[in-house]
């Protein structure tokens, strides 16, 4: 038994690394701490190493280096006590086609060492709208219902730390809504949740904190609100009627840049700021008699952020020579 120390993190990862037998380096020594009761989103493009990270913690992938502890229990040395507290909904739908819904969920509960509890299982299945299907064979269910079954299996032993690997990939609107309701309900009961996604909106909607992972490196961990500020930047590009040799002094108060040999004026601004500065810029330009033929705005996408972050990261590692 662990000491009920409120400061023990739900998940503490140090230097966790994975190089697959094929030689692919899926994780480069990742460090991460997730506090008890937190909802943490791992955000990253396909192939970033999200699934590898989760699988290395859960025991499905053997790490090449580093450690992970779940509520203070080492996932390799004290794997029994660590795993009892973990629930995992994997990315792929892996189910036993010939089993019934009820049987497969009861199987999961006892596999994790919990005594049978028909009342708990019934409530779980009702919450996931699976109760009416309890005697159906899993192969008779739709994809969405199968995913609900996987969630029920993961929750069957009442875990304190739940991993949801791309929970909404290919999921219909109903299930998406139910899933988020469920996640909120679990959080109220104190369950810590780590989910992965490659949709920024999803991370924004659900998570307290977001970790951005790319090419096996956790390049940024931020409060969701802080990250959103960085993400909420837009670029305004004005195609000038006459090219400018340099920026006029009258426009000094805006963060401007010239592009395309002075044919374009580029302004980057924060959409969430009180005043974006766009109307005043246009007024000032008209006062200075700087005309423009066309304009467009562009939201900095997740892709841009990744490219930016990965680039910065490469520069940093190159500089430190590691």
């Amino acid at each position, binding site marked *: 038994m662990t000491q009920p120390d409120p400061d023990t993190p739900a998940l503490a990862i140090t230097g966790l690394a994975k190089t*697959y037998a094929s030689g692919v380096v899926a994780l480069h020594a990742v460090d991460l701490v997730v506090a008890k009761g937190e909802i943490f989103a791992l955000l990253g493009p396909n192939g970033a190493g999200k699934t590898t990270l989760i699988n290395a913690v859960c*025991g*499905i992938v*053997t790490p090449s280096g580093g450690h992970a502890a779940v509520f203070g229990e080492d996932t390799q040395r004290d794997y029994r006590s660590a795993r009892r507290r973990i629930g995992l909904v*994997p990315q792929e739908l892996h189910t036993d086609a010939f089993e019934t819904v009820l049987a497969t969920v009861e199987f999961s509960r006892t596999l994790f*060492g919990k005594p049978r509890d028909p009342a708990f299982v019934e409530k779980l299945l009702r919450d996931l709208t699976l109760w009416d299907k309890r005697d159906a064979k899993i192969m008779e269910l739709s994809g969405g219902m199968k995913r609900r079954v996987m969630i029920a299996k993961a929750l069957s032993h009442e875990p304190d730390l739940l991993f949801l690997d791309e929970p909404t990939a290919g999921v219909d609107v109903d299930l998406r809504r139910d899933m988020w309701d469920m996640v909120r309900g679990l959080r109220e009961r104190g369950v810590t949740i780590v989910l992965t996604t490659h949709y920024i909106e999803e991370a924004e909607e659900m998570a307290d904190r977001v970790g951005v992972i790319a090419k096996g490196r956790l390049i940024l961990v931020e409060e969701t609100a802080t990250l959103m500020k960085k993400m909420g930047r837009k670029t305004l590009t004005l195609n000038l009627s006459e090219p400018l040799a340099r920026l006029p002094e009258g426009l000094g108060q805006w963060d401007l840049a010239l592009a395309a040999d002075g044919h374009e004026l580029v302004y980057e601004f924060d959409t969430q700021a009180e005043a974006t500065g766009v109307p005043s810029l246009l007024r000032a330009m008209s006062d200075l008699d700087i005309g423009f033929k066309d304009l467009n705005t562009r939201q900095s996408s997740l892709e841009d952020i990744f490219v930016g972050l990965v680039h910065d990261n490469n520069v940093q590692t190159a500089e430190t020579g590691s």
Partner: protein
Amino acid sequence: MNPRGVWAIYRFEMARFGRTFWTSLVVPVITTSLYFIVFGSAIGSRMTEVGGVPYGAFIVPGLILLSMFTESIGNASFGIYMPKWAGTIYEILSAPISPLETVTAYVGAAASKSIIVGCVILATAQIFTATPIAHPLAMAGFLVLMAVTFCLFGFLIGVWAQSFEQLQVIPLLVVYPLTFLGGAFYSIDMLPPFWRTVTLFNPVVYLISGFRWTFFGEGDVSIGASLGALALFLGICLAIVFWMFRTGYRLKS
């Protein structure tokens, strides 16, 4: 320790067998009956006894062993291959259950089924020919040990196999030749000296001989050699299973 987890897997496997219960019992019974008709009656009418034992009874231990060998390998290999193939192995790998417990559950379930099959064949055989059992307790013990050993071997094949074809090929390539050439239907004393020596390298000879000893009080080799061979076979399988789990061989990446 996670006895509930072991029991969960054991029950899951037994339920899987339960779904095909009748076919899995009817098939060995029909096969055994065919062997009795062909070997026991047709050949047995020409070859009345082997070492003082009526030929029909003489082939009973070999027939039981043959069926148990194929059943064990089929069930145990399929039991672990399926979750690997379907991806449901993720749950076993992430559960608070030790490798030893996992093997106990899978192999225990497959061995239970093999023992049932063995008993059914013994009962079927008794219909065709009254077969004496000289050492009933030793017979039961040998039956159980063989079931466990064969199932461990099957489990290894299931972990090793990467396709259904590989799953099928070992029984065909290994089990039948070794069993047929291992004296299931004859005594190796009946072979020319050269072939008798070659046959002594076949591990199944020792198993059949030992099993036959529990029925008739004598075998081709001493009971000690038979027990030694069984223990060696069991030990090798256990060592390989242990190594597989420690390295995650074909179970984890």
